[in-house]
């Protein structure tokens, strides 16, 4: 049986709008509609979509914070909103933009309190804490109040907090937002190991395609409240026809660069913008440019999720 099962999930919000001096109009907005998917235990799924597409609404329904307007939803065999506190013991939630820790307390106190709240057996608690503190390099930070932690440190603290009770499912909402490259890499590595060793089901929302690339075998793309894509990441890229951009800074101004596999979109003094299909490797393009021109600097831009999705629509 699937660990998460959603069928024809729908969620509407009543929006009041001012219409005239005193009159207010009520209208209904569909945040999510006809959403159907199922996730097997142990899967790592990326859930992406532009802002306001319905990602957060979905996560809130899956955790029991929001009651669906219609449709069928089971998480770990439970109806989330009806049995919220029961479900809470089976899931872990990491909100990238806000902390689940207590702002004024040292990390250690927050963890101890969570142990009591989730009634984690002392032996399990010790084992998990030692493990995550080591893996996430939190050892020196345990006695620091949460408010004094950097964003990356806090995020590691939050992830530890979400895992102390050995949840079957871990939801991560923008877990890498605002993190530097090294922290991002470490975090991804940690999540992959968690899934490998414990079989924890992961559902993460993100704006960073690289998160998905590193972690998820499966992507669900939501737009305007419905799934527009559900499948492997490669399928999304090649099907969508999105393009990556290579920004080249030459030593001197030159006519548009001409290398196989890429086209030059823009020239501005010594700087040129080359684009090539997102599913192709950047290596041959970079090599060809470096071989034929005097290059001062290079940088690579991934297609934004929004572009991929726009392409997806245009292609589909």
């Amino acid at each position, binding site marked *: 049986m699937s660990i998460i099962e959603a069928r024809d999930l729908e969620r509407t919000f009543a929006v009041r709008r001012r219409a005239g001096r005193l009159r207010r109009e009520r209208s209904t907005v569909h945040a999510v509609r006809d959403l159907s998917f199922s996730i097997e235990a142990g899967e790592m799924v990326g859930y992406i979509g532009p802002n306001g597409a319905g990602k957060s609404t979905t996560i809130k329904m899956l*955790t029991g*914070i929001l009651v669906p307007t219609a449709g069928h939803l089971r998480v770990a065999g439970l109806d989330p909103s009806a049995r*919220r506190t029961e479900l809470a013991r089976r899931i872990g939630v990491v909100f990238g933009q*806000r*902390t689940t820790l207590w702002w004024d307390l040292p990390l250690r106190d927050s963890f*101890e*309190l969570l142990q*009591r*709240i989730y009634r984690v057996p002392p032996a399990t608690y010790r084992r998990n804490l030692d493990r995550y503190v080591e893996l996430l390099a939190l050892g020196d930070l345990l006695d620091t109040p949460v408010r004094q932690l950097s964003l990356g440190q806090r995020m590691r603290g939050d992830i530890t907090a979400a895992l102390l009770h050995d949840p079957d499912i871990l939801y991560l909402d923008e877990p890498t937002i605002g993190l530097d490259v090294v922290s991002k890499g470490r975090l991804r590595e940690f999540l992959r190991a968690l899934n490998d060793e414990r079989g924890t089901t992961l559902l993460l929302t993100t704006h960073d395609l690289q998160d998905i690339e590193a972690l998820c075998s499966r992507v669900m793309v939501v737009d305007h409240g419905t799934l527009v894509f559900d499948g492997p990441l490669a399928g999304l890229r090649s099907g969508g026809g999105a393009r990556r951009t290579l920004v080249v800074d030459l030593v001197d101004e030159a006519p548009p660069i001409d290398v196989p596999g890429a086209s030059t979109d823009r020239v501005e003094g010594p700087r040129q913008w080359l684009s090539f299909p997102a599913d192709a490797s950047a290596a041959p393009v970079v090599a060809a440019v470096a071989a034929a021109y005097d290059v001062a600097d290079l940088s690579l831009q991934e297609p934004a999720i929004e572009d991929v999705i726009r392409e997806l629509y245009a292609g589909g």
Partner: protein
Amino acid sequence: MAEPVPARALEPVRLYGRIARMWIRASLAYPVSFWTMTIGAFFTTALDFVGVWILFGTIDGLGGFGLQEVALLYGASGIGIGVADLLIGSVEQVGQHVRTGSLDVMLVRPVPLLVQVCADRFQLRRLGRIAQASAVLAYGFGAVDWSPARLLVAIGMVLTASVVFFCLFVTFASVQFWTADSSEFANAFTYGGNVLTQYPLTVFPGELVKMLTFVLPVAFVNWYPCLYLLGRDDPFGLPAWLQVAGPLPALLLCGVAALVWRAGVRHYESTGS
């Protein structure tokens, strides 16, 4: 896993204790700040009654009540709101939890929401108010001609007062689920109810007293039980049984508070942040 029923019923209390204890420990990390705040709270509220005392320097009675009798009323109401404020005063913050989204975090924890909201930022320094009110009440007890029945009513009075303010806090804080921030509106009823009951209700018009009996029943916090303790007839000619009826409105208010809170949470769950 079937747990014995009493253990399950006490679970929220146990969790409340855990969270509160952690906040106490956190506040004791700054002992100077803790003690100045606690002693400060004691003196600010202490001065409050000094005002009444000074008033009695120029008058002999207030609405037919002497200083010691007014102290009895003042102390009972003060302990009631003090205990409620200590235990669940943080419920006022619910609007802020809605605005900042911390309510979502609480909703994904396996603890009843009310327990989490009430225990959040538990402040032991609120004991200052209770200490002051207890001192005033002890002085007021000197006016009572004690009997076993009166002792029982006195205990019942303190409990009723706490429960009534407790319910008012929860009920009016729940309004913030709809309005996001209306703590001032709530204060009008909670602290307002406290201020009204610091004086003998004989200083107010009869209509107001009826309202404080049947609509916003803060008169049961101290007025009716004190009439019993002092062996007085009801100055407004209301039936004598009201004097010992306190627990009844307290229970009713519990029901109302639970309903309004539930409706508030339900409303939140169906609108999100």
